[in-house]
């Protein structure tokens, strides 16, 4: 375990994810669930999430393509997206999803569509940030395990 600078880099990446509120505290729960059997649990879950949420966002986008808009389907998908985002602590995505739901409820179509773009942006940002983080993390190994006294 000599990658101290690397480890430091990973640590600061992680910290910035929280600082920038891209990730919420819930993510720490994921990390805490890691153990010898599942050393990369957080990463696995996040990967799962990214995959599912991408599909969900696509569904939402499709529903908003042209009228008549299936509001029910939209709302359901958004609700699901909200749930998943909450599960992994994808903070920004969660916030934007909430906003979109609100504007949908209010019937503000323009705003709803605009919100969708914000969600997509947040989603991409998230992916862009966590993927390299995890990649690096794999290289250094999770802090606890790495630091466990032998």
């Amino acid at each position: 375990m000599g990658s101290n600078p690397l480890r430091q880099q990973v640590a600061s990446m992680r910290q910035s994810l929280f600082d920038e509120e891209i990730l919420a505290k819930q993510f720490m729960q994921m990390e805490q669930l890691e153990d010898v059997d599942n050393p990369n649990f957080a990463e696995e879950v996040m990967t799962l999430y990214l995959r599912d949420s991408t599909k969900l966002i696509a569904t939402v986008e499709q529903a908003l393509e042209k009228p008549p808009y299936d509001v029910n389907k939209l709302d359901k998908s958004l609700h699901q997206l909200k749930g998943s985002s909450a599960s992994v602590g994808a903070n920004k995505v969660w916030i934007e999803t909430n906003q979109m739901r609100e504007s949908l409820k209010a019937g503000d179509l323009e705003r709803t569509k605009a919100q969708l773009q914000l969600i997509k942006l947040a989603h991409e940002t998230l992916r862009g940030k966590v993927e390299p983080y995890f990649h690096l993390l794999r290289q250094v190994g999770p802090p606890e395990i790495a630091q466990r006294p032998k």
Partner: protein
Amino acid sequence: MESSFSSPRNDSFPAGLRVLVVDDDPTWLKILEKMLKKCSYEVTTCGLAREALNLLREKKDGYDIVVSDVNMPDMDGFKLLEHVGLEMDLPVIMMSVDGETSRVMKGVQHGACDYLLKPIRMKELRNIWQHVFRKKIHEIRDIESHESIEGIQLIRNGSDQYDEGYFFSAEDLTSSRKRKDVDNKYDDKDFSDCSSTKKARVVWSVDLHQKFVKAVHQIGFDKVGPKKILDLMNVPWLTRENVASHLQKYRLYLSRLQKENDIKSSFGGTKHSDYSSKDLQGILSVQNSINIQQNDVAHGSYRFSGNNLVAQNADPKSNEGDIKGIVSEPVAEPKKGTTSNIPDSQKTRSSQMDFNSSYTETKKGLVGNVPHSQKIRSSQMCVNHSFASVESEVNLTAFDSTIPATYSWNQIQLEKEHKPLIQLNNGFSKPPLPGPQHHFQADQLQSIPSISSRPSIPGGDVSGSSKSKPSYSEYTNHHGSRVSPTISPTISATDSFPGQTKSCVVDHQVSETISTSTSNMKNQGINLSIDLESAQRNLILGSTAPFASLDDEFQICWYQGDCYGMNLELQNIEFSEYTDPTHVTEVPAHLYDALRFEYPCDPSEYCVLDQGLFIA
């Protein structure tokens, strides 16, 4: 068999707790599984509600607790909750991202032990074992308090009194359950052999249940009793109490199913002790009416004249006003009697049918919920809510239009269709009801839960005069059959009730009838919970055959918008009894009287009723 307290698993309780997790989101499933494993629980996951039910049914005693998400694609989480509670009696924890009070309330009402908000933290999951533990303790206590016996007693109190008694008992049960008191109110039957020995929880395996069902069929559903079943089953280690409590659950389950089925068939007659048929009918009609109402809400003239009641007697007679609008659904104006709108009883029937389906759904919800006394409570509450909501809206607002979906059929809040019903009450401008403020007596509640509250008194002030609700309760009493109180309230209120306003769709116009009907209703016991907005009213009337009398008077003018009163729990709509269209008309009057439920009794009263009805 001792409860799991003594099983080896308990040595390290709560470790090894067998949890079934149900969630459609794979991300969540993974997370929850990991969390629960960390708590040393045994986890099984599944992504669909149906799958979960299958798993539970295959291994009846294979799980200790179920954790489920509220929103699922194939089945509503609350429904799953009902099923689990009814069939397996396991503690269920609900989860959701949405933490709105109303949702949480709904969860609790449906019987959830707890409601967790996502994202869920580990520590919250660590403590879920307490629900399992608590339930075990209660079970033992319940057995000792002969609770089941009482329940059975109640159920057996005769279809006539069923609603009333049942409802009461259901409530009592719940309370007695907690208090461990033996409520002797209802048990004059073979209560005596209730021993107070601690009994282990019996697992009703498929075989055992088959034997049970066979025995029940052999004896004849109406004459069934725990003792007889026990004898026929010939299972040495089984006690009467075991059978009694299982019978209670079974009845509830059946009534729920029946509602679905019966509704389709004529309302008439299936006087099931479980009120299922009745309720169904009533419900159906109510539903129909309600449905109609919904559509017709626009109509304004609720003249629902009994059509909605469809359930019963489809007597168009009583249906005054343009129930047509309301009845537009296949309900075909059951009651035409007074109201011209009602095309003819036939229609109403059909509409009833429609309702039934919708109703059954709602009812089912209700019924499902009430497998136990507790549930009844919840259902009542549900109803209350719906009703209450409706009430407020409708009340007195002269039902216009918004047939508040509050149609809170007690359970279902009739979200589906009822909305308009609730309005009923408003519309009823206090019809001349003879003042039978029959508050919906709780007894009546049995079936009428829905109606009572909202007797969409066309007149608009249902609240006051329409009391149609109350009539329900009265009705049921009269009838014995479970008149679905639903109609009552509306009926009385409706101005148009010709006095009959019996529970059925109290036509606004019919207010006069309504008033009379209410009185009649009483006799009729039409506990129709007229809530069904006009349509329902009709239904209600129909339910208790006596409706016939109501017809004319009944003009169930359903206040079109207000029908919401019909919260009728239609369930009880004893309608089943009334296959006779004429009855419907008559009933209205009676119902109306009965219904006259002081409308102001609104939801609270309703609730009571509903609860009762729900029990069905």
